[in-house]
């Protein structure tokens, strides 16, 4: 492995290993020396190279863009989704956050709605299914009016953007003591509730997305707000309040 240089961190990394969906899992422990300038996922790459050199299969983990935008990376690091840094995805977390001699515990996102596929890889298909229930504006290609036909007040556009920044990573679910997916659903409902383009389907959207969320086995929101603290895009719980309001409003109105 890498030759140790001054400033490198000696770490003991405990990673959850599980051969398949219904198999038992356990933590495997690896001692590792790593430069503080590497990213957390590069540390795992390195750990895997070390495992493979010893004839062990690499540990599976999800990742793709490695620049904090695709939402593919996950991991609960020392009890925190995406690790200890605020507004940071795991792929953007760097080892300089840790100290020499640290023990690091790496677990998958745990929720009934996110079944484990292997090791640290979970199935977040539930989020796609929730989106299918109404996370869109129904506008067929080619039927749109001119982009300037409907002005949108800047504050509404900005707030909609804050919600739209969601990367669908699932950290909100992983962090929630109840494994609730409210922040994810709220972000989408809120984005469209704030924009005139979303208005025609407002009621149906809130109702059907909440129904879809409930069907996936996520827990109920009890306003711990851990989701917002874990969210790498700092999406605020005000969007959950808006979802609650939208849902209440839609429930009191006639179903179309």
């Amino acid at each position, binding site marked *: 492995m890498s030759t140790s240089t001054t400033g490198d961190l000696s770490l003991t990394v405990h990673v959850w290993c599980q051969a398949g969906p219904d198999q038992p899992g356990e933590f495997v422990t690896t001692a590792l020396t790593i430069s503080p300038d590497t990213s957390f996922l590069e540390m795992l790459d390195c750990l895997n190279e070390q495992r493979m050199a010893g004839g062990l299969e690499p540990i599976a983990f999800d990742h793709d863009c490695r620049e904090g935008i695709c939402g593919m990376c996950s991991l609960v690091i020392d009890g*925190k989704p995406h690790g200890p840094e605020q507004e940071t995805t795991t792929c953007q977390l760097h080892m300089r956050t840790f100290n020499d001699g640290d023990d690091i515990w790496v677990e998958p996102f745990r929720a009934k709605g996110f079944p484990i596929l292997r090791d640290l890889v979970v199935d977040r298909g539930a989020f796609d299914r929730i989106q299918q229930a109404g996370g869109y504006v129904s506008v067929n290609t080619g039927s749109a009016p001119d982009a300037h036909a409907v002005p949108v007040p800047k504050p509404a556009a900005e707030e909609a953007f804050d919600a739209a920044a969601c990367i669908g990573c699932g950290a909100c679910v992983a962090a929630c003591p109840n494994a609730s997916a409210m922040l994810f659903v709220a972000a989408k409902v809120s984005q469209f509730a704030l924009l005139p383009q979303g208005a025609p389907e407002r009621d149906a959207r809130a109702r059907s997305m909440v129904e879809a969320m409930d069907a996936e086995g996520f827990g*109920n*929101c009890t*306003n711990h707000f851990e989701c917002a603290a874990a969210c790498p895009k700092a999406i605020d*719980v005000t969007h959950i309040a808006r979802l609650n*309001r939208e849902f209440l409003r839609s429930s009191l109105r006639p179903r179309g």
Partner: protein
Amino acid sequence: MPSWIGRFLSSSVGKKTVMAVTGLSLVGFLVAHLLGNFSLYTGGIEGFNEYAAKLEDLGGLLMAAEVVLFAVFVIHVSLALRIVRENRLARDEAYRVRATMGNSTRASRSMAITGLVVLLFLIVHIIDFRVPTLVGDMDNLGAAVVERLGSPVGATVYLIGILALGLHLRHAIQSAFQSLGIQHPQWTPILRVGALALAAALAIGFASFPIYCLLSQGAASAGVN
């Protein structure tokens, strides 16, 4: 029941709404209860008994109010049990390392336990005072209150119950506004402070009674000796 109500009540957000509405109703009751209790301070045991008698004079109206209160309470508790069960099921395997992200509070994380303690406390409280008055077994309610709350055991039980209530309310009141979607960039921070102040006021207000009774009983027994 129309199907939309059923759907609403069984949805996660609908449940929150009902929890918030029933919870805030119970808070309303607590406020009234506390204000009534203050008659002990303003009029002593006699004043307290007068207040109790006025309530009894309401007759059917009181009965109706109590039935409604009971129903609200049952809904709140049974829904809470259901939510707790569902939330447990939503994460079948716990994390090995538990860490808070910093936004949850001890109060928010212990709602189920504080709720349960409040429930047990309430049963004790009703057996202590409401059952005897109902069956006409208690002539001097005020004296009984002072005696019960003034005993070391009684005071401890009541203080534990009220502490649990306080913790429960610390999360509950401000949380209810969120659940009802009452959210405003300027007003919510103020509302939140108000909610915390109300929770603290209720807890301190109620806690003052066992402490007052304990002190006055102590003084009385000291006087006897």
